[in-house]
C-alpha cells in the first residue's frame, strides 16, 4: 500500500512524501490530484443512497415501516427521469433522511434500514 507518512493537507499543489511500494520506500512529491483522491468507503447494504443527484419526488415509506426486498421506497427525479428506488433487502425503516421536494447530491443517504437477518 502506498501511504503518506506525513500529515497531508489536500489543497497544497505538491507535497514531499515518502511512498511505500511493496516494502520499498521512495521520497517523492505527491501531486494535487493524488492528495485530493477520495478515501474508499465500503458499500453499506443498510443504506439507500442517491445513485445520482436529483430531487426526491415521492416517499412511500415512514419511519418504523416494515419493507420487503424490492418494496418501493421513493421516487428520485434525476436527469428528466422519475426513478423508482426499491429496498435492497427486507427490514424496518430506521430513518428517512429526506423530505419530498428535497434536492440531493450523489451518494446522499436517503433512507436507512434496519435489516432483518
Amino acid at each position, binding site marked *: *500500500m*502506498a501511504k503518506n507518512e506525513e500529515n497531508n493537507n489536500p489543497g497544497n499543489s*505538491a507535497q514531499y512524501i515518502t*511512498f511505500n*511500494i*511493496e*516494502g*520499498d*520506500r*521512495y*521520497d*517523492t*512529491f*505527491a*501531486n*494535487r*490530484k*493524488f492528495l485530493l*483522491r*477520495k478515501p*474508499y468507503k465500503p458499500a453499506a447494504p443498510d443504506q439507500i443512497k442517491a445513485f445520482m*443527484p*436529483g430531487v426526491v419526488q415521492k416517499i412511500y415509506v415512514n419511519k418504523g415501516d416494515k419493507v420487503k426486498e424490492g418494496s418501493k421506497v421513493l421516487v428520485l427525479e*434525476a*436527469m428528466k427521469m422519475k426513478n423508482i428506488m426499491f429496498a435492497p433487502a427486507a427490514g424496518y425503516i430506521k430513518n428517512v433522511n429526506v423530505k419530498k421536494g428535497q*434536492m*440531493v*447530491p*450523489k451518494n446522499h443517504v436517503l433512507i436507512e434500514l434496519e435489516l432483518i437477518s
Partner: protein
Amino acid sequence: MSIKLKTVDLKKRMQQALQGGGEKAIEKQVAMGKMTARERIVSLLDPNSFHEYDLFVEHAAKDFDMDKKFLPGDGVITGTGTISGFPVCIYAQDFTVAGGSLGLMHARKITKIMDHALKLKVPIIGINDSGGARIQEGVNSLAGYGEIFYRNTQASGVIPQISVILGPCAGGAVYSPALTDFVFVVDKISKMFITGPEVIKSVLGEEISMEDLGGAKVHSEISGNAHFFSESENECFQQIKKLFTYIPWNNSKKADPFPKKSPNLKLYDIEKIIPTDPRQPYDVRNIIKAVSDDSEFFEIQENFAANIVIGFGRINGQTVGFVANQPLVLAGVLDVDSSDKAARFIRFCDSFNIPLVTFVDLPGYLPGIDQEHSGVIRHGAKVLYSYSEATVPKTTVILRKAYGGGYIAMCSRHLRADFVFAWPTAEIAVMGPEGAANIIFRHAIANSDNPEETRKRKISEYRKKFANPYVAAAHGYIDAVIEPSETRKFVIHALEISSQKSERGPKKKHGIPPF
C-alpha cells in the same frame, strides 16, 4: 458595369463581411481580454500568408425570424496559410457574430476546410470560441457537429490536428478538440465543459465557478484534456509555432531535420543528475536535456500526471519523442492518468514517424483502492498496447529501477524495443529488494533467532545479487550496459542504425486497444 465598378462593389461586400459582429461586439470581446478571430489568425500565421475562403457564406436558418438576420461569414473564419513556411488549414470561430454559435453553414465552412486539409495532407488548426449549438437551427446544428467529429476521426493519424480553445467551448463542441491531437488552453480565457455551472446547479444543486469547473488550469492539471497551458493568447501562439517545428505535415513524411547541436553539458552533467541513493528523487527532465540537441525539451502536458514526462526534442537534428518516468512525482509510478498520457503520445509519435526514446526509472504501478477501482488494469494496458503496436524506431535506456510490470511496460525488449541500454545503476528485477526478500525469505526470517537482522541480511543479499542490470544482460534482454556519459552516443547510433526501419504488423482493419 466596368471592372472597376465591380471591384468597388466587391470591396464593399467584403468590408461588410469583414466587420464581424460589429464595433460593439468587438469592444466586448476585447474587454474580455480576447483577440478577435481574425487577429488571432493573423498573429498565428506568417505575415501576409493568410488566404480567407467562404467569406460570403450566409446562414440558412429560417425559423424564429433568423431569416431577417445577417451574420457575417456565419460566425467562423476559414482559410489557409503558413506557419514558418509550413502550410496549414485553419478556422477560427468568431464570438462577435451570434456568439460564435454553430449552425449548418458555419459547420459546413469548417468541414469544407477540414476536407481540404485531409485532401491536401496538411495540418488543420481549429480556434474554438463559441457559445455552442445555434439553438434556432435545431437539429442542423447537431448534424454540423457530427460532421466535424467524423472528419476529426478520419483525419486522425493522417494529418496533425490542433485545437486552440480561446473562449467557451461547451456541450457537444468539446468533442472536436477531444478528438484532435493537441489542445491548447489559455489561463482565464479557455473554458471547456459538457454541462456548464448553471445546468449543474439546476439539476444537481452543486455550485461551482466556470473557472473551477472547466478553466485552463483544471484541464491542464486535473482532467488532462489540455496539452499546453499558457498565460496569454500570444504565448499560446508561440507554443503552436514551436510545436510545428517538431512534427511533420502528414503521416507520409518525417519532421524536417534541424542543424545538429550538442547538449549543454555544463548545465546538464549527466553523471551528476542521478543521486546514488535509489530512494532519492531527481528531475528526469534533466536527463533528457543532457541528451537532446541544445538541451532543448518541448514538454507536453507538463502539469498533468507529472509522474510521467512526455515531449519532443531533437537528437542529431532529428525529432524524437521522449517518454520518461519522473521519480520526482509519485516516485515515477505508472497509474491511470500517466498511462493514458504516455499511451496517447506514443501513438501520436508512431502515426507521424517520430522515433521514441524511453528513459526508465519506476518502481511499478501505483498501488491503491482508488487506482484499482478507476481501472488501472485497462488504463495501464494502454501503455503495453501502444508500445507493442508502435513500429517507429524504439530505443530504451534504463536508468535505475525497472521493477515488475513497470519494467515490461516501459518499452522493454519484450514489447519490441529495437535497442535497450542500461546504466550500471539499473536495477532490473521482478520487484524491489525489500519486497522481494520479505516474500522469498519469509520463513527463514520468521524462524530465525533475530528476524530483523535476518531480514536486513536477506535484503542486502538480494540487492547484491539481483538489483543490477547484469541478470537481464545475461539473458540478452538488454543489449548493452553503458556508462551514463555514453548515453547520447548510443542513442544517436541506435537512431542512425534504425533509420530505414520499416515494419508492418499482421494485416487487420484495426486493433482494439483497451480504450
